[in-house]
C-alpha cells in the first residue's frame, strides 16, 4: 500500500517513525490521514450544502442564508449542530440494526471513494494502479446503504424510494462506467495520477479526444447526476411524490449523514469529471506550471466547483423525470450512444486523430 504524504506532513511522518515502532507508527499515520480526510470532507460537505442553498437562492431570486455569520457562512455549521442535538427517532418495527447501519454505509462508501483522488501532485492518499476502476467499484456499493435504509424504515414511501434508487443506480452505473472507459481508452491507464500526467503534455483530455470526449463528458454529466440522485433524476427522494423518499424516517445526525453523503457524492462525480476531462490539478494552459509555491489543489477545487455549479444549475432548472422515462433515457439513448461513442473513440485513436 502506497502512502504519499503531503510535504508538510513529511516531518510528522518522520517524527512518528522515530518515536514509535514501525507498525504502530504506520497505524497512527493511517489514522491521522483518515481523521484529516474525515474532517476535511465533513467541512467541504457542509460548505457544499451552503453553496447549494446560496446558488438555489440566486436562481430563485432570493437571498439565501445570510443570518449566521458573515454572508451566512456558518449557517450549515449551525444546522449540523442542531441536527446533532436532535433525537434519533425511528418507526415502529424497524429492523434496528440495518436501520442504523444504512447512513454509515452511505457516508463510508462516499468517503472511501475520496481517498483515491489526486487533489494535487502530492495530495493523494491512495494512488492505486486501478484508480478509476476502484471508484466504480466503491460507488457501486453506495446504493446498498440506500436500499437497506429504505427497506428497514418500515415505510412504504421509503420502500418505493429505495426501489427506485436501486433501479436508477444499477442502470446509470453502466453509463458512467462506459463513458469512463471511453476516456480510459484514450489514456491507456487506470491510474488517476498517470491520467493527469498524460494531460500535462497533450492538453486536457476533452481537448485530446475532441468529439467523442465531449460526447462522453455530456453522458458522464447526465449519468453522474443520476448516480448521485440529484434533480432531474431525484426520483429517489422526489418530495412531491414520496415525501422524502428513502430517508423519510431518518432524523437528526442519521439524516445528516444521508444529506452529507449526497453532497460528497456530487463532489466525487465532479472530481472524476475533472480528472478525466479537465486535467485534474493542472492549470489551464500551464499558467502556474513553473511556480512552485502555488497550491495546485486550488485549480482542482475551482474546476470541481464549476462542475458542481453546473449540476446545481441542472437541479434548479429542470423538472423531474418519471421512472420509466428515466430508464428509457438510459437504455434507449445513453447506452447506445455510449457504445457507438466507444467505437468512435477507438477508431480515432487507431487512426491517430487525437490532438
Amino acid at each position: 500500500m502506497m502512502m504519499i504524504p503531503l510535504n508538510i506532513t513529511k516531518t510528522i511522518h518522520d517524527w512518528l517513525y522515530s518515536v514509535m515502532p514501525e507498525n504502530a507508527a504506520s497505524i497512527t499515520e493511517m489514522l491521522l490521514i483518515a481523521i484529516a480526510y474525515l474532517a476535511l470532507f465533513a467541512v467541504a460537505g457542509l460548505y457544499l450544502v451552503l453553496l447549494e442553498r446560496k446558488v438555489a437562492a440566486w436562481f430563485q431570486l432570493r437571498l439565501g442564508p445570510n443570518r449566521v455569520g458573515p454572508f451566512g457562512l456558518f449557517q450549515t455549521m449551525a444546522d449540523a449542530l442542531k441536527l446533532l442535538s436532535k433525537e434519533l427517532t425511528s418507526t415502529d418495527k424497524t429492523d434496528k440494526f440495518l436501520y442504523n447501519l444504512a447512513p454509515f454505509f452511505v457516508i463510508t462508501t462516499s468517503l472511501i471513494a475520496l481517498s483515491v483522488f489526486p487533489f494535487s501532485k502530492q495530495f493523494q492518499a491512495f494512488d492505486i494502479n486501478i484508480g478509476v476502476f476502484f471508484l466504480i467499484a466503491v460507488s457501486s456499493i453506495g446504493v446498498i446503504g440506500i436500499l437497506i435504509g429504505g427497506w428497514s424504515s418500515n415505510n412504504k414511501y421509503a420502500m418505493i424510494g429505495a426501489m427506485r434508487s436501486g433501479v436508477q443506480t444499477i442502470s446509470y452505473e453502466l453509463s458512467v462506467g462506459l463513458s469512463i472507459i471511453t476516456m480510459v481508452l484514450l489514456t491507456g491507464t487506470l491510474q488517476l495520477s498517470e491520467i493527469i500526467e498524460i494531460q500535462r503534455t497533450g492538453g486536457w483530455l476533452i481537448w485530446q479526444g475532441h468529439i467523442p470526449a465531449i460526447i462522453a463528458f455530456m453522458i458522464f454529466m447526465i449519468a453522474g447526476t443520476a448516480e448521485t440522485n440529484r434533480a432531474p433524476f431525484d426520483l429517489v427522494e422526489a418530495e412531491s411524490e414520496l415525501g422524502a423518499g428513502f430517508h423519510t424516517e431518518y432524523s437528526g445526525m442519521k439524516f445528516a449523514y444521508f444529506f452529507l453523503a449526497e453532497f460528497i457524492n456530487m463532489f466525487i462525480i465532479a472530481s472524476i469529471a475533472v480528472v478525466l476531462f479537465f486535467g485534474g490539478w493542472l492549470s489551464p494552459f500551464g499558467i502556474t506550471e513553473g511556480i512552485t509555491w502555488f497550491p495546485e489543489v486550488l485549480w482542482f477545487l475551482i474546476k470541481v466547483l464549476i462542475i458542481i455549479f453546473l449540476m446545481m444549475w441542472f437541479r434548479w432548472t429542470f423538472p423531474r423525470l418519471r421512472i420509466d422515462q428515466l430508464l428509457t433515457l438510459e437504455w434507449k439513448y445513453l447506452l447506445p450512444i455510449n457504445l457507438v461513442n466507444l467505437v468512435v473513440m477507438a477508431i480515432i485513436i487507431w487512426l491517430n486523430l487525437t490532438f
Partner: protein
Amino acid sequence: MRPISYRDCERNITLEPGTQNMKPETINNNFKTEEYFVNMGPQHPAAHGVLRLILTIDGEIIKNVEPDLGYIHRSIEKMCERDSYQQIVHLTDRMDYLSSHINNEAVCLTVEKALEIEVSERVKVIRTIISELTRIASHCLWWGVMGMDVGALTTYFYGFRDREMINDIFEETCGARLTMNYNIPGGLMFDIHPNFVKRTKDFITHFKTKLPEYDRLLTGNVIFQKRTKGVGVLTKEDAISFGTSGPVARGSGFANDVRKRHHYSAYDRVDFKEALFTEGDSFARYQVRIMEMWEAMKIIEQLIDTIPEGDIKTPTNAVIKLPKGEYYQRVETARGELGVYINSTGTKNPYRLKFRSPGFSNLSVLDHITKGAKIGDLVATMASFDFVIPDIDR
C-alpha cells in the same frame, strides 16, 4: 370491488379487483404481485392542502385512487344559513382562496339578481378587471406549483414574483392581499385606489415580458412535455359526464366558459377567445391556463382605459331580505364554474345556500383518469387540475 374502509388500510389487506371476497388471486402468471395501500396526504407535499388520497398501488402503478375529504371542512354552507347576506360574502373568500374576489362576486351577483338591482357600469367594469387579475394571480401560483410538482422548484418563485405584484394592487385597493372581501351586494365596498389603473398597466407590461419566459422555462422543456403529454387523458365525453368545468373541461375540448356563454358583469362587451384544447391530457390543461393568462391580459387591456364613471354602490337596505324563491348564479373562477344557489324564505338569512364548487366535480375525475398510471403521473395530473382543497371541502 368493494369500497376500501379505513380498517382495511390499517390492516393492509389486499383487495382483488373484481372479487367480492378475499379469495387469493389466481393469476395465471409466474409472478404474483401484491397491491398495497399508500396514503397520499393529508400532509403530503404534493397535495396542495389537506387532501387525503388512498392509493392502491401495485409497485409504481396506481390501481385505484380514492379521495378522502373532510380534513378542512368548516361547514361554510351551514354558516351561511346563520349569516346575513352581507356577511356571507366574506365566508366565500375562504373557499377558493386563490380566486376569492370571483367567489365574492358570485354571491353578490346572486343577491343582486334576487333583489333585481342593477349595479352601475363602473362597478361591473371594476369587478371584471379585478376578476381577471385574480385569475392571473391564481394561474401564476398554479404555474409555480405545477413546476414544483413535476420537480422544477424554481418556477415556484418566478410564479410568486408576478403574483406578488397583483397582490400589491389588491392590497392597495382592497386592503387585503388574499381574502379581499371587496364586493358587497349592490356594488363595491369603496372606490378603487387612484393608483389602481397605473399599477395594473405596469403589471400588464411587466407580465407580457414574463409570460414568454414561462414558456421558455417550462412549457418548451422536453422533460416537462414528456411528463405531461399523454398523461391523465380525459376524454370530452368523460369531461361532460363527470361535470367538470373550467380549464379541466376546456383542456378536453368541452367549451363551457361561463364568461362566454352566460355573460355576467362586463364580459359581454369585451372581446376574448375561449381557451380550448382538445387533447385532454395534462399538457392541454396546462396550455389552457397559459392561454387564459394571455386572454385575461387582453380583457384587462380593453377595460382599463375606459372605466366609466358611476356610483360605486347601489343602495340596499341595511338588512337585506331576499324575496321568497330560489336563485342561482354561476361565474367562472380560476378553477371552473362556481354556482351559488340560494333558497330564500323571505327572511334575512338564506334558508339553504349551496355552492357548486368546481374543484369537487373536477376531483371526481381523478380516479377515472389516473388508473394504470404511475405515481409521478398522478402528481402531474393533480398539479394540472389545480386543486384548492378548501374549495373541494368548503
